[in-house]
């Protein structure tokens, strides 16, 4: 069985329990590289799937919070190699992992080695925000040959016919970006969100997880009635930034 199906299963399990799946996002090695695994374990205790952000020098789809976390992590020497080494020492977390990375660090690492090491460390899929469907063949093939998936992002600006293509190409789950904008925005979720998420869910066989701009339990509830899961990034990174235990924050949002 492709490991990307572990993601689908984890999200479905949450839904069967009558709640949206919670997908926390952390920037690897932020704020302290020494705390990475500890933080990951804590977050994985509550989250149904954990998204690990690979820091990058040019995070063009991210707002201030993720940018800041990314730059600090890089300054502290965090790299994809380091992250894999840390994950290897951690062993199985039982909660499935996905990695979010801009393309260039993956290119530099090499796709085949990437897929092998990812599989060996419990990573089930990748989210690559600057890799549109038209350019993704090579990476998708490399990942799928190890049973991993490439998660496709869809947005409110995605036309209907394109939406069908992207949803069909996605593995594990479909990442529905809630807003036209960057991560960590404070403009709130758009009014026509329900309609948009219902549309994505209706054409997708895979569970749909909504991300961008989800900051509190009201937001999770809001997207939860129209999508299978909620991805919480910037708001969680802010909690970690202040040195707080992420578990109470995440439990207040739902989670397992």
């Amino acid at each position, binding site marked *: 069985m492709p490991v990307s199906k572990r993601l689908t299963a984890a999200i479905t399990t949450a839904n069967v329990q009558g709640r949206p799946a919670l997908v926390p996002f952390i920037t690897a090695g932020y704020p302290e590289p020494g705390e990475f695994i500890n933080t990951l374990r804590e977050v994985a205790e509550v989250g149904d799937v954990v998204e690990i952000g690979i820091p*990058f*020098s*040019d*995070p*063009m*789809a991210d*707002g*201030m919070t993720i*940018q800041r976390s990314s*730059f600090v992590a*890089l300054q502290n020497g965090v*790299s*994809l*190699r380091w992250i894999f080494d840390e994950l290897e020492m951690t062993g199985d977390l039982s909660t499935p992992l996905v990695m979010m990375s801009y*393309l*260039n*660090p*993956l*290119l*530099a*690492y090499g796709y085949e080695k990437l897929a092998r090491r990812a599989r060996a460390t419990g990573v089930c899929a990748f989210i690559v*925000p*600057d*890799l*549109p*469907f*038209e*350019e993704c063949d090579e990476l998708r093939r490399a990942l799928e040959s190890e049973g991993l998936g490439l998660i*496709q*992002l*869809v*947005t409110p*600006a*995605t*036309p209907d016919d*394109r939406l069908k293509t*992207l949803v069909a190409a996605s593995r594990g789950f479909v990442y529905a*970006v809630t807003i*036209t*904008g*960057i991560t960590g925005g404070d403009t709130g979720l758009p009014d026509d969100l329900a309609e948009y998420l219902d549309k994505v869910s209706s054409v997708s066989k895979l569970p749909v997880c909504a991300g961008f701009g989800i900051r509190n339990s009201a937001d999770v509830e809001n997207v939860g009635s129209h999508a299978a899961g909620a991805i919480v990034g910037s708001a969680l990174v802010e909690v970690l930034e202040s040195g707080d235990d992420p578990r109470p924050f995440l439990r207040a949002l739902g989670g397992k």
Partner: protein
Amino acid sequence: MKFQLPADEAGRLLKASINGELPDARGRFGPFGGRYVPETLVPAFERLEMGVRDYLHDADFQSEYRKELREWVGRPTALTHAPRLSERWGTDVWLKREDLAHTGAHKVNNAIGQALLAKRLGAKRVIAETGAGQHGVASAAACARVGLPCSVYMGAVDIQRQAPNVDRMYRLGAEVVAVETGDKTLRAAIDEAMREWVTDPSGIYYLLGSAVGAHPYPYLVRELQSVIGTEARQQMIDQAGGLPDAAFACVGGGSNAIGLFYPLLGDDVELIGVEAGGTGDGLGQNAATLTTGTPGVLQGSYTMILQDEDGQVQETHSISAGLDYSGVGPEHALLQATGRISYVSASDDESLEALEELCETEGILTALETSHAYAYARKWSQENPGKRVLIGNSGRGDKDMPTLTRFPVRIRTDAS
């Protein structure tokens, strides 16, 4: 690791390039180029691509564009013979004077073309990034000319060193947004402009200033800048009595270089792009992407970039803000790989010296970016006496006065 193309593939791609067949339908210049952008922007890029296809070579658009170039930009710009510089160098030196174009650099050729396109596409407002401020000034002016609001994203470091241009942008009615993220120079400004664009991909037109980024920008910018080489080629025949033996242009993102070189690709002319050698060869000491970089994806395009072994893009150094960029246009990456164009670098010091030499021999204060082309052309001339040389004088140096005042004027070597 240098990018290697098999010899037959290099030959085929160079031929395709000369025949105007590149980029291909996927926006590729051989292995380089493409469109690596967030999904939110894909529809916006498709709309732009369609706009480029529908309007760029449309007779009405071209006639409006040509009229603006002639009556507002002041084209054709002069080809100037440089007799005193020629005497010093031992070559016959000719200058293509983009510094004489309205707003003082080649940037305006692209800015007015894209502003007209933005208008045709029904954009509500325009955003642009700028490094040296020349593209910001050109965009501000072009937007005022076509009646569209304009916001210019500029790194905080560049705002410091190019202060005169910041004031010019304000006076031309643009909003200048200081970018405090990342390296606070051109690369961060592009990232920030992209972030703004994703908030309203259908209402905003992103007026990108160099031949970089995702398809169709490298193509669009080349088409709009090729007027430089097309004019220069004819002027060389008319005024100098023939094509040059070698042509030189500075390369940051590479828009003035591709504009000068593209119409000369099929000719028997040695083409040499000069990058910013900064203070040395080490990562972070220069912005010499083609001469010291490796292939990777930066800001929408697969091209040569300055990065570490983990694929993290590196900060650059150059005395010239306009060359201070970690990437380069994908078409340059191809033309390097095919061997058609040589890319070299000139250091900060060499460029400053070349700037002074041009001032005192020909009475032209050129931009610090452009000085890099002079610095290398001078070296080349020493090894190739008697040859005919064309230099793309891409912009004027008034904007560099805050930087230049830090360096005392050297002792005159030629007191005549």
